[in-house]
């Protein structure tokens, strides 16, 4: 079987966010080509952000992705506040982190239960899975709902929150407002721990990958909404140095640009965060990880489902910590008067590091914008994995091998809408 030429093809990838396809060509026992094609139509955000007010990117860039709008809002705010030389009050920064926890919970619960778990249990979707394991799917949906409840309580809406602004929020809740949310999250913590235990029982194909890794990092805590950049290979660097390390290039088979870190392939997202920062996880999350068989590093992309579960546990713990200590800040936002300059912002979207850069004029209008989403950064690593996994399993028949190839892509929870909408190259505004 390994001597003939084989083509594996999935024209429309399912259970991923956005429009993509995969193509693999095998010749004489070697993978000649392994491509993730992104044919999602481009939407040109970076072009039409020019000339917009410096207050607008949180609302506009949220529309890049309905699944991780808070990531876009946060990276945009971080970049614009950096450009304008503004620092948030501590309570406002905590509220931003709290909101972000909701997105991690909701997005990871969606991926684990509705998109990823069916692969491990031989089901085409979660509804089919529910015919055998209704309680598990219901638990997953409850967990996802808890994340959305947090997003609605702090953000005013789960998809494209309305309460976020440059400098903070339009309004912030009182301690009493947060009491029902805390109850919901306490129940969700049990569901999250049960989810980690459940996924720990899955069978994982054996593969260890050696990509470089990139994730935000903060002193003393597992980074979410801000930080500096850590890699597996070199010294840490600040968000403003991102363009010196990460370079994007266009390839013909994708409307998403491919990125490289200091000239080589790398990975961002749950595996990178966990491997670089797992020592900073608090007790409950660390214990859940240990019980699920995770060590201090995880380099098997099929096991990313475990890491997502552990990150849900962490996000709930962190949200509860913030709520327990909550005192409504004296003001919901700080003033951010515009000034001429360039700002850089990063945050950890559920799928990995999301970088924004804005050049703002003294009139407060945006001169240039650059957005580098995680999925475009991960494309080269995804394709390398695809090649490796197919080469390791050439003994499988076409249907099984195609299935495994599709699973290899789904491991990354790729956000193809993000990738296509944001790909950008280094360019200077006019």
């Amino acid at each position, binding site marked *: 079987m390994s001597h003939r030429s084989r083509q594996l093809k999935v024209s*429309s990838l*399912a*259970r991923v*966010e*956005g*429009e993509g396809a995969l193509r693999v060509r095998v010749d004489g026992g070697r993978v000649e080509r392994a491509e993730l094609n992104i044919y*999602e*139509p*481009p*939407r*040109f955000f*970076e*072009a*039409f952000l*020019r000339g917009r*007010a410096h207050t*607008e990117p949180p*609302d*506009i860039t949220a*529309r*890049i*992705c*309905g*699944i991780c*709008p808070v990531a876009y809002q946060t990276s945009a705010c971080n970049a614009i506040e950096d450009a304008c030389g503004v620092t948030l009050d501590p309570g406002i920064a905590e509220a931003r982190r709290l909101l972000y926890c909701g997105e991690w919970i909701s997005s990871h619960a*969606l991926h684990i239960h*509705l998109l990823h778990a069916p692969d491990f249990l031989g089901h*085409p*979707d*979660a*509804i*089919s899975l*529910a015919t055998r394991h*209704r309680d598990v*799917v*219901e638990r997953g*949906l*409850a967990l*996802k*709902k808890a994340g*959305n409840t947090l997003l609605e309580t702090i953000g*005013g*809406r789960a*998809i*494209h929150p*309305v*309460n976020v*602004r440059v400098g903070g*929020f*339009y*309004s912030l809740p009182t301690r009493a407002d947060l009491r029902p949310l805390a109850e919901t999250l306490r129940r969700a913590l049990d569901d999250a721990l049960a989810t980690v235990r459940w996924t720990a029982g899955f069978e994982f194909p054996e593969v260890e990958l050696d990509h470089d890794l990139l994730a935000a990092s903060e002193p003393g805590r597992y980074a979410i909404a801000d930080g500096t950049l850590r890699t597996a290979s070199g010294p840490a660097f600040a968000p403003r140095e991102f363009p010196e390390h990460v370079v994007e290039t*266009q390839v*013909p088979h994708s*409307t998403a*640009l491919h990125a490289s870190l200091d000239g080589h392939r790398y990975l961002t997202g749950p595996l990178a965060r966990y491997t670089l920062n797992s020592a900073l996880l608090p007790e409950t999350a660390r214990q859940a990880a240990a019980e699920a068989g995770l060590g201090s590093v995880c380099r098997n992309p099929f096991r990313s489902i475990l890491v997502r579960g552990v990150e849900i546990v962490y996000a709930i713990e962190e949200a509860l910590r913030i709520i327990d200590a909550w005192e409504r800040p004296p003001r919901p936002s700080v003033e951010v008067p515009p000034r001429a300059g360039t700002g850089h912002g990063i945050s950890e979207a559920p799928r990995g590091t999301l970088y924004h850069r804005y050049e703002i004029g003294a009139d407060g*209008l945006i001169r240039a914008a650059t957005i580098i989403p995680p999925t475009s950064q991960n494309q080269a690593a995804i394709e390398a994995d695809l090649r490796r996994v197919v080469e390791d399993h050439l003994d499988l028949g076409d249907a099984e091998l195609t299935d495994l190839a599709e699973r290899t892509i789904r491991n990354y929870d790729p956000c193809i*809408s993000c990738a296509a909408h944001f*790909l950008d*190259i280094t*360019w200077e505004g006019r």
Partner: protein
Amino acid sequence: MPTPTLAVWKFASCDGCQLTLLDCEDELLELAGRVRIAHFLEAFSTVVPGPYDVSLVEGSITTAADLRRIQEVRAASKTLITIGACATAGGIQALRNFADVREFASIVYANPHYVDTLATSTPVAAHVPVDYELHGCPIDRGQLLGTITALLAGRAPDLPDTSVCTDCKRRGVTCVLVAGGTPCLGPVTRAGCGALCPGVGRGCFGCFGPMAKPNTPVLIPLLRSRGLSEGDVDRVFSTFTVTETRREEP
């Protein structure tokens, strides 16, 4: 009676409106028992060939291939419902309609000739007949469920065509424009969100698009008197439903 089939389609969009269906956490499993989800790539690997009783269409038309695909979706669907600002108005990506798309592509891509794109982003209704439209960026979950429920019961969905002001009154939210001095598009924007922005002390920014007969000429001086510059006023009408709200140059 056979189980009705539901299909979900994506064109140029952020996936947020189809995600709204998955965000019906309490209803999803029951819904899946009452309709057969026949095509929904975001969450289902199995694809059942058409025709479909109801199609939900997210996203705007921005490529030649999608121009053909929307015709096929229409032909395969008994009832076609567009969901969200991209499908009903072209979305924020329709800002290209007022610019040079080749220049836009050159800003984002080094080799723009690899990129297949039309010069415009247009709503689905510009190309095929649409039975119902759910507005919003994103759509409202309650409105989506209400619409599916109505169709299952064989009646037309009840979709509001008043302004956000009626939502504010219903919720008892103090007027941010009159009492708070905050610029607000609520008086000219379709109801349906439940007055989310005024609820957090923010002016409506129009993500549900203009109501049937918006009295915009009366609102604009009010916006200016609440501190918006001429440029701000232009920008606030040039967002998620820009094809419906773009002010004509004098």
